[in-house]
């Protein structure tokens, strides 16, 4: 996608790969745009039939029904007010998406000298642990002091995984035994971060399906315990979403937000071919800002989210 071109120089060595990727994505996006244009231009009016086809085209980019209907409605309005001559469906749709994605502040909380605790939550395998590492790396490069906590004591080798990252990035890690109470680990981590005067503490939690009540309760406990130790902690709760996920992402966001109010979203695996249209539906409904996107498995494959770039990338528009 287009925002890939904004990756910083440190990974310019992989630029060839990204360039290829961009081209390839360009092609699939153009197909989408082409499809939409074909539908729209074929008939001068947005008829029931063409609206339905349009609907399917947008759905095929994982937009979901609500957002799809909203885009179609916006298109209809634009058509009626501007007339066919000036009508650029793609632009209208992209603007609509950008607007939907612009609610909330996408920047990460910065509390100056006070410790900021950030909890990574989400369903299994979305990229929580890797995002923890990437974010630690990013904050460290910004001159912040950072700590991490291995609060996934359940999954096989989850602690080892974060330990490898902590060694690679030289970031202190608080961990317990496998099977230990994750809330206890979180508690210790906050104590340790406070005593070290750290700027940030990143909490890696276990993957859990939002449908599992007992596991959601466990997560609430982890948060509660941290809040008791330090007022307001966790200050940020980031839901890590896999871009490959379809409509279920909305359920994930809803349920996690109910259990542990979310302050932001992280969309991972955007280096793949998925367009993550469901993010639009999520933001539209829950108004939780996307804060970062993940574009690879390396520590520097994390970028701040820019709504405009994202929206234009989805529709293959040039800046």
């Amino acid at each position, binding site marked *: 996608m287009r925002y890939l071109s904004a990756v910083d120089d440190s990974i310019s060595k992989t630029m060839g790969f990204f360039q290829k990727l961009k081209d390839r994505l360009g092609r699939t996006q153009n197909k989408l745009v082409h499809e939409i244009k074909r539908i729209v231009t074929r008939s001068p009016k947005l008829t029931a039939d063409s609206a339905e086809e349009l609907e399917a085209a947008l759905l095929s*980019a*994982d937009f979901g029904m609500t957002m799809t209907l909203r885009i179609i409605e916006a298109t209809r309005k634009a058509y009626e007010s501007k007339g066919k001559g000036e009508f650029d469906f793609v632009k209208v749709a992209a603007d609509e998406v950008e607007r939907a994605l612009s609610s909330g502040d996408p920047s990460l909380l910065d509390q100056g000298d006070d410790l900021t605790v950030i909890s990574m939550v989400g369903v299994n395998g979305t990229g929580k642990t890797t995002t923890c590492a990437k974010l630690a790396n990013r904050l460290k490069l910004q001159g912040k002091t950072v700590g991490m906590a291995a609060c996934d004591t359940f999954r*096989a*080798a989850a602690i080892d995984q974060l330990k490898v990252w902590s060694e690679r990035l030289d970031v202190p890690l608080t961990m317990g035994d496998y099977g230990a109470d994750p809330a206890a680990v979180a508690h210790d981590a906050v104590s340790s971060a406070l005593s070290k005067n750290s700027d940030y503490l990143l909490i890696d939690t276990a993957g859990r399906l*939002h449908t599992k*009540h007992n596991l959601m309760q466990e997560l609430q406990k982890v948060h509660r315990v941290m809040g008791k130790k330090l007022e307001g902690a966790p200050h940020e709760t980031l839901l890590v979403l896999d871009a*490959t996920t379809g*409509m279920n992402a909305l359920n994930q966001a809803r349920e996690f937000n109910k259990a542990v109010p979310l302050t932001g979203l992280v969309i991972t695996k955007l280096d793949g071919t998925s367009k993550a249209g469901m993010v639009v539906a999520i933001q539209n409904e829950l108004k939780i800002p996307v804060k970062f996107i993940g574009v690879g498995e390396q520590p520097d494959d994390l970028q701040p989210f820019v709504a405009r770039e994202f929206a234009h990338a989805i529709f293959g528009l040039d800046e």
Partner: protein
Amino acid sequence: MFESLSGKLQGVFKDLRGLGKISESNVSESLREVRLALLDADVNFKVAKQFIANVREKAIGEKVIQSIHPGQQIIKIINDELVELLGSQNAELKLDAKPSSMMMVGLHGAGKTTSSGKLAKWLMKQGRKPLLVAADVYRPAAMDQLEALGKQMNIPTVVRRGEKDVLVIAREAKREAAERECDVLIFDTAGRLQIDEVLVQELVRLRDDIKPQEILLVLDAATGQEAVNVATHFDEALDISGAILTKLDGDARGGAALSLKSVTGKPIKFAGAGEKLEDFEPFHPERMATRILGMGDVVSLVEKAAENVDMDEARKLEEKMRKGVFTLDDFLDQLRQMKRLGPLESIVKMLPGGADMVGGADLSKHEKEFRRMEAMICAMTPEERNRPQILNAKRRQRIAKGSGVRVAELNNLMNRFGQMQKMMRKMGKMQKMMGKMGGKMASKMAGRMGAGFRMR
């Protein structure tokens, strides 16, 4: 899985059922809804379109419009079509070589490593001697993860930390398999994008070296529209032999299963439904189709019940239920048998419309409640259990005290028991209509729903 889709289809068919006769416009209207439901369930746009076209053709060809029970007929057509799309039979694993090799491939975080462990466990249960091979040379602690799973089951794992060449690992694995006399090797590979040619080529080299009997694409049930491209690319590059669908314990609608099957034609062989190694079973397309249509995964439930429930007892209870002579003693038996079936959540989801019932319900609260129910019934005399109508205020006080609850709670239990009996009588009638073993079991399980269970 598939909740919303089945919910929607049920909605559509409720309308259809209500009509004595349906017109062509009824069919179209219903099919449009089915199509949108499919799209909303992450079924790929083109797959959904084809599906609808097929159903429409068949519906018209069979002159559904003039039939007596048009709704049912359409349900059958849609069901058959879904079964066909999902694969008409359960595909077995190919294990004819000595030793045989399996390769797990797929996107990042899909569940390859976990499924490797699950498959090893499953094969061990079949009397095989598996060897796990850690061939993910990229992800931090990937090898430790597989090794930890192996240790849990006492299954040996080939681990060469620091080795970056999967072919070296493959060579070591073959040697170790011979040494340990293992008859099936399971290669866990690193997650990769289907468009990452360098890494896909690594898989091709590994495949050419080990010549696996099975190459299984591990696919997350929550995958969106891209499932089609993922499946196509992996299949084109590797000629996969099948797929494993994971994370079916969530509420993802799983349209990706339909997409995958229809673009590759390769069977989905296993389903993963939990993080634990035993949460794994062969995939059954018929059941999945039934489930999509909101009929509940009745067959699975029957099998599960057969494994865990004393069938004689079950038959007796069923008989009682039908005759409406279901007592509190029977209820107590139900409570106890139910516990052996597993978590309520997973059982209820297998029932017709069960997924909707579960919704966001707090099942752990119910669990506690059910335990207290057990205590209350235990505190009753045999006669009271047989004839609850004799429970006067005095008796109720005694029972409440004996089981450490308040009288109000006991009253509540008795009310619920009354409701349950009513529901069972209704189910009894329904079951006559369905007239099938599956239907019977479903009704019985529905009756049991109010009973106890064990949390994960």
